[in-house]
């Protein structure tokens, strides 16, 4: 038998990326703006989503896709209680959502009635960064109690973000968190990324974030 070297040079996530681009086409045809929210567990993904719904509810109809590792509907139930459609995706223990999982979840949402879809990824700072979902904006929620060193320790997830939220700023007087050091790491990995310090508890800073999102949604509607 002869031995041969065959050049491949193919991205390992190419199959996922193909489904992601199909998802993106579906969003664009429907004129829906979609965001993928990533964060560590407890950073405030669901709280931020609920605040976002309350702020934008008068103007837009928002669907939510909740990624969880187990069949718990706590997060989806909270969204439904706010009067918006929500779908639960149980990843069966997987640490992230991928594009095919999102595609399956989308089939259960009334796309023609929606302006925004918010995808709540599994709480994790490593794996979700690797899987493109086809959403328009990747949003990371960092939070003050996690510490200011996270961009340095988890550089992968800080790359490729379209917006960065720093939640729980009401705790800044009580927790050591050097904002300058935090911002410096972010700026290296993702220069000029839209940055929204806010508190879901006090409501401070929420409107800057929701104004940004509303402007993106309006742009998407014009493009359609």
């Amino acid at each position, binding site marked *: 038998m*002869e*031995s*041969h*070297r*065959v050049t491949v040079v193919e991205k390992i996530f190419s199959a996922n990326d193909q489904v992601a681009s199909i998802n993106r086409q579906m969003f664009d045809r429907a004129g829906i703006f979609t965001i993928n929210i990533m964060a560590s567990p407890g950073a405030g993904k669901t709280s931020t989503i609920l605040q976002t719904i309350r702020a934008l509810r008068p103007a837009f109809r928002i669907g939510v896709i909740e990624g969880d590792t187990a069949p718990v509907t706590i997060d989806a139930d909270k969204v439904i209680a706010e009067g918006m459609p929500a779908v639960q995706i149980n990843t069966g223990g997987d640490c992230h959502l991928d594009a095919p999982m999102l595609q399956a979840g989308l089939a259960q949402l009334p796309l023609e009635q929606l302006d925004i879809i918010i995808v709540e990824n599994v709480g994790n700072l*490593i794996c979700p960064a690797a899987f493109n979902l086809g959403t328009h904006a990747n949003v990371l929620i960092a939070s003050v109690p996690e510490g200011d060193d996270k961009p340095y320790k988890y550089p992968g997830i800080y790359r490729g973000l379209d917006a960065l939220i720093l939640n729980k700023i009401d705790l800044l007087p009580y927790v050591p968190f050097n904002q300058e050091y935090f911002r410096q790491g972010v700026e290296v990995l993702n220069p000029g990324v839209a940055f929204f310090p806010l508190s879901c508890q006090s409501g401070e800073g929420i409107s800057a974030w929701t104004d940004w999102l509303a402007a993106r949604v309006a742009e998407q509607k014009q493009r359609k």
Partner: protein
Amino acid sequence: MHELSVTENILNIATSHAQKAGAKTVTDIYIVIGRLSSIVDDSIQFYWDMISENTICFGAKLHFERRPAEILCLDCNQKFSLNAELSPCPHCNSMSLMVLSGEEFWLDSIEIEK
């Protein structure tokens, strides 16, 4: 822990290229991973041995080439490699840095027998 789906992707890509090249068996698979890419540990080889059974890739050895991230210092204009956490420029201690590369994650080549 997304190593299982990563391993499945590697198997699919390797199998398809091996079949196109008319391979009887695949002996080696070369993978490039950048420092800023997803974190993938050695458990891939463990999954690999399970899921590649009964395919032409069974028994193939996985080789990982881990590439450091290349960083440019915007103050002293020197480049340096990053193997660990994001850290200041080793030449001038500046944090005004630009990432040049480090997000590679691809299957580079395979060694086959015909």
